[in-house]
């Protein structure tokens, strides 16, 4: 069995974001990048499946972006993936989800994967489209937002998260794509020996132009901070003063302090 895991590198979401020169995306200077959180669940699930099947499946981790995305690939290798595919693209943010999905599908088609794991969405763009589009382009079965995954006899049993705590259960025949949600598993920390081992694993570099055949179908016109809804008070300073101020506000504006 051949497994593909797609990961994206995103900025730390605690960061302060400001528009870049183009006005359509964020300025990268001073931002720290890490693996997209949802993709960590995808990597973990792929590695768990490999272990379940006696380490037979080969797990490839793919990421699209500039050189820095090698860090995310290396982390996935240290978590247990076998090899990396770095699709070299200095400006992936200029491509829409349709193009990103077509790049992945083009790569997957030539490699003949049976199962593709990815996060349910990215933390930065958050379109929740790429995984499903990859499945559609490849003609694979697909289930999104997995909080439960089981594999037996060539069939994936997927537990999908619906609203209000309800789960939807579906069975998928391979080949398939699944997108992973928070709560699916607890991603492992790469151990030092595994980090050392990962350094010897192959990372294939492929120029994005070799795989991109599609035109964009959507464009970002602007990137900007949300309008504050107004009226909210912001309190800053010494903790003692903050407590007094908040206590006063609660007394004045609410009925909960009697």
């Amino acid at each position, binding site marked *: 069995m051949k497994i593909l895991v797609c990961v994206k590198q995103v*900025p730390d*979401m*605690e960061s*302060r*974001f400001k528009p870049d020169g183009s006005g*359509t995306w964020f300025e990268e200077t001073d931002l720290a990048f890490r693996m997209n959180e949802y993709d960590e669940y995808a990597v973990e699930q792929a590695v768990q499946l490999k272990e379940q099947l006696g380490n037979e499946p080969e797990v490839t981790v793919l990421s699209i972006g500039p050189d820095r995305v090698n860090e995310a690939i290396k982390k996935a290798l240290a978590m247990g993936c076998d090899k990396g595919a770095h699709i070299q693209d200095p400006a992936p943010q200029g491509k829409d*989800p*349709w193009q990103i999905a077509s790049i992945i599908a083009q790569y997957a088609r030539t490699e003949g994967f049976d199962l593709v794991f990815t996060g349910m969405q990215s*933390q930065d*763009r*958050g*379109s*929740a*489209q790429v995984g*499903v589009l990859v499945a*559609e382009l490849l003609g*694979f*079965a*697909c289930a*999104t*937002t997995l909080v439960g995954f089981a594999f037996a006899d060539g069939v994936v*049993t997927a537990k*999908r*998260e*619906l*609203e209000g*705590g309800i789960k*939807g*259960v*579906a*069975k*998928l025949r391979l080949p398939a794509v699944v997108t992973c949600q*928070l*709560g699916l598993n607890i991603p492992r920390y790469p151990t030092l020996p595994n980090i050392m081992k990962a350094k010897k694993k192959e990372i294939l570099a492929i120029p994005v132009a070799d795989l991109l055949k599609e035109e*964009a*179908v*959507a*464009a*970002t*016109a*602007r*990137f*900007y*901070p*949300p309008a504050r809804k107004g009226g*909210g*008070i*912001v*309190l*800053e300073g010494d*903790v*003692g003063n*903050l*407590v007094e101020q*908040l*206590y006063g*506000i609660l007394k004045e*504006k*609410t009925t*909960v302090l009697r």
Partner: protein
Amino acid sequence: MKALLVCEYREGKLLDTTYELLAFADRIGAEKAMVLIGSDSALPACNSTVYLAEAAKYGEYNPDVHKKIVLDAVQRENADCIVFVHSSYGWDLAPRVAAALRAGQVSEIVGVVDGGYEVGCCNAKMRRAVTPTSGKAVLTVQAGAFSFTGTPQGTPKVERIDIPDGATPVEFVGYEPAEKKDVDLTRAEVIVSAGRGVGKKDNIPVIQALAKALGGELGASRPVVDAGWVDHSHQVGTTGQSVSPKLYVACGISGAIQHLAGMKKSDFVVAINKDKDAPIGEVADVLVVADVMQFVPALTAKLQ
């Protein structure tokens, strides 16, 4: 412009969020038609055409079959845009329809602005204006962003959809009910919720102590529940409970959209967060910029 609105139906009932699609269509000034995979007994009240396929025949959710039904309605209506709620149903089905039509999709629309549809990004800290550049467009709208006011009324003109059966690699097995709730947060007058910013499980009693001092209940955001710090029955948000207390205190909660959706009906919101730019600040009446573990015990002591 003609909009085809995709209704939601689960366990025999039409979901109320369906009406938000009508509000969105009005906002963009589109002519409306709807498609429902459901039943005659759960038709939306409206004056539009509703393309109806029987859920009894096609299943409440099979993505490949539902895609074919929606595409059939798109063709019959010659719709310019196809609109879904950004729910577990919409975000699963919309990209499949978009791929089939080679249409640009804009996900989780929160507003309509100069330059396109407004969507959240970077964990809701920022916004993008996005425009589809294809002939047709697929749109998903954030639940609650376009409120339907008034009472739904009207009688739809029903057009039936019957498509050939086909093999599908996905089989819908069924639903699993939500875990039983030990705590009914929906009745609480005060809720003090713990988020990831609380740091570790050992710190939860500090938040619980504030809840007690205010005579309220402990709530939690999703990552805290997933980490096993707090039981799921305390979770506030789209996958937990929707609450409307007199006072909601968010401790170390950044304010993911799913959490905000579950607590935005609170009368008064206090957020305690080190990050002044955290999206929770957008809905907070008071944002206290401080370390939760320093501020909360001090506030509890004052209250006692």
